[in-house]
């Protein structure tokens, strides 16, 4: 009698468990059918548009995913690795020893984000005027090499960078009614960022410290540069 009751109870439990599992499976099937409750482990591919949709018809290999499952269309939205060109305005103070030395420059910067997006290499050239307290303004010409790192995806669309710069240039001015030229060279660090507005178009701002050597003397400079580029 006891065995018969235990057997009946076990049979009922198994039946209830089977019914529960079947009901859960039915519910999952229903959710799948409605498109609910799916957990996405990667972005959904973008829906094809226009000619793209026609080209994709019946072609499974061109459905917007590469072999690794990464969205190929996302590649097109990445900034072009370069060369990118910026037009710059720069300000610094190259002290003349008599209270003056404000220098305003305009220039061009060309940089690459290659072979890694995080690597930034570039060159720049600037020309401008430097205030000389005891006479007329000087002509300032500067070229720079830049190597640095940037973070292209962390706080997109802002791309900060930290670079090492080597600068060479010259200063031409009037001293005691005579034209004199002095060469300078130096290096330093620059911290800056690009705000990417539309594809490669961006605004840029940077702040840097450099130490230059000119005429046997060293100069501590803080440089501010603003720019826009493609």
């Amino acid at each position: 009698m006891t065995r018969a009751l235990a057997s009946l109870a076990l049979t009922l439990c198994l039946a209830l468990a089977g019914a529960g599992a079947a009901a859960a499976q039915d519910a999952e099937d229903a959710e799948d059918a409605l498109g609910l409750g799916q957990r996405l482990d990667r972005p959904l591919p973008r829906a094809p548009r226009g000619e793209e949709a026609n080209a994709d018809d019946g072609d499974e290999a061109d459905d917007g995913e590469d072999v690794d499952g990464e969205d190929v269309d996302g590649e097109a939205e990445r900034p072009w690795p370069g060369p990118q060109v910026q037009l710059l305005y720069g300000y610094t103070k190259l002290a003349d020893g008599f209270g003056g030395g404000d220098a305003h420059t305009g220039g061009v910067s060309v940089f690459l984000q290659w072979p890694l997006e995080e690597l930034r290499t570039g060159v720049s050239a600037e020309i401008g005027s430097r205030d000389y307290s005891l006479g007329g303004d000087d002509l300032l010409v500067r070229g720079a090499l830049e190597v640095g790192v940037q973070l292209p995806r962390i706080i997109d669309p802002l791309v900060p960078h930290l670079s090492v710069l080597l600068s060479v240039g010259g200063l031409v001015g009037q001293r005691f009614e005579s034209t004199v030229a002095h060469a300078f060279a130096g290096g330093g660090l620059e911290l800056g960022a690009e705000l990417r507005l539309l594809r490669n178009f961006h605004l840029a701002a940077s702040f840097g410290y450099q130490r230059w050597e000119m005429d046997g003397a060293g100069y501590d400079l803080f440089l501010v540069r603003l720019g826009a580029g493609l």
Partner: protein
Amino acid sequence: MRRASPLVLFALACLAACAPSGDDPRNRMTTWVSPGGEATIFYLAPPWELERTLDNGVALRVPSNANLAGGLEGGPGKFELVALVEAGNPNTRIVAERAAALVAGREILDERELFTAEEVAGPELVLFDPGAEFRRFRRVLYLPLSGGRALRVEVIATTTPDTPEVTEMLRLIEVDVAP
């Protein structure tokens, strides 16, 4: 050469770290120290160049365009500076200088006192020499020196030397005024 260029830039950048600060204009200038060490003159070279040293002083000049482009030796430069260590008191010496200028037919454009960067005061005359072969202006400054001596500094120029550049050059002169 292409491989060497980055190394040269790097070396220059390292040198920049060691150089004295350019905030002090004296660090960019060449110096002349009097034989007794009682006076030091700082001058920007170029354009200033050492013309000759004397037993008790020095002569500097900024070459004229005729000197530079025409290759002419001698002749007046755009600016000339002659500094001499002499006996006497600056105040009595400037009175004698003034009298001599009037006798020579020079016009006195200004009389004043100049303070060096170290706050040493010295009397100064600004003169114009209309009778010279070349149109010349002069600034004559006397600074006191130890031992009852004076440093006579004369700047001669084709245009007026009464400019901020010349004034600062004179202000940067260092003199030993200890008794």
